[in-house]
């Protein structure tokens, strides 16, 4: 896997740096990126943040 030039970020790494943490994200953890799922305790599904019918086939993190 070494010696390739395909690794690393495809964008400026600073784009992975979140804005200041806000309360109320997935599983009660703070939302720290714009890409994070919205807090919606009425939505059902994992941790109340992802509409049940829209949960992904595979996932990452506590909310898929």
């Amino acid at each position, binding site marked *: *896997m*070494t*010696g*390739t*030039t*395909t*690794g*690393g*970020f*495809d*964008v400026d*790494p*600073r*784009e*992975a*740096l*979140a804005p200041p*943490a806000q309360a109320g*994200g*997935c*599983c*009660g*953890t*703070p*939302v*720290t*990126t714009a*890409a*994070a*799922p919205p807090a919606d*305790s*009425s*939505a*059902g*599904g*994992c*941790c*109340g*943040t992802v*509409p*049940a*019918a*829209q*949960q*992904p*086939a*595979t*996932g*990452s*993190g*506590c*909310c*898929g």
Partner: protein
Amino acid sequence: MRQPDPARLRAVVESLAAAPFQGRRVGTGGGRAAADHLARVLRRTGATVAFQDFAVGAAVREVYDLPTMSWAHEGTRRVLDFRRDFCEHLASADLPHAVTGRVSATAEPGAWVLHDAFSHEAVTAAAEAGAVGVLVPRGTDAAGRMPKMIAGPAPAALPVLAVRTDIHGRLHAGDSTIRAAVPVRPVDVDGRNVLATFREQHGEGPAFLLTAHFDGVGDDPDGTRYPAACDNASGVAAVIEAARILHHRLPAGAGLAVALLDGEEAGAHGSAAHAPTLARGTHVLNLDGAAALREAHVEAGGPAGPLLAALDRVGRRLGVPLRARAMPSDNRRYAAAGHAAVGIGMGMPGYQTPLETPDRVETATLVAAAELLIGAVEELAAEPVASRGGPHSRR
């Protein structure tokens, strides 16, 4: 000794996914046994190990008996499969014994009411109308399974079942009756983090914390196993292996610790308990999933610019693509506490289903994840104090 050992990585995954740990749900005998097992593994690597116990509260929804559901329509009765055709909605009220009711699109006495989406207000209205329960649609994964979750919205006023979307749609047509039981209840549990110190930080040396959660969603009451090999035995294995190697490589003064966290699946409770105890200036790298390398998803919070730059450099060197994506896991607790924290995810095939078995964990991904962690820490440790985020300051 100085490279990730595939056999050692696999051994951790396979041991954690084994039957005695019962899916490693927080607050269970299996979860506690997994913590003890990991403490022994870490001590064998030369670390000093301690436990941190914490209260989760009543956040966990426990399915204490197997839910049942059957659908009668036009003279036939079809028994539906749990976690394929239907499952408990996490907000469901307890329904220990099966209740029969006709299916209705409107809230009526004695009916199972069809809703297109869950809302507490709609369920409360159905309860006030005398309905027996609510049916909402839910999708499946590519294998036709409904991933198991254990934490969610506050309990609702009625039993709520999540029904496979196509079946839910067919329930609208004609006269149908549903007979179902939903034995689910909130349980008040405690969790236990496993904290390992490999090297104490001294002077202006950097401090690093590698984290991964070891808990899972637990086996079902009928004995159906949830091995949680990908989410997150794989992350635990890569973190332990990275620490084992970094222990012998880091420069004098650099600190290195590992936190194997409990209660993530119930709402990241282990990291919530641990983050406030961590010394300021610590760089946190959380790994959640290291099972299927297509690309690594990275989310950073707190003053993590130098950590991201280090990850970028090592990703390029190793040929590991990195993508800025949401990683809603324990890393957010550390970031919220003001620490430089990154969450890294490298795939979870079979996510929270019985198919999340050790054979789904790619050895190459385990090795790549360990190398990514090792490389990022070494990159940052080699930088001047000012470049890696300022002087280290202890609380």
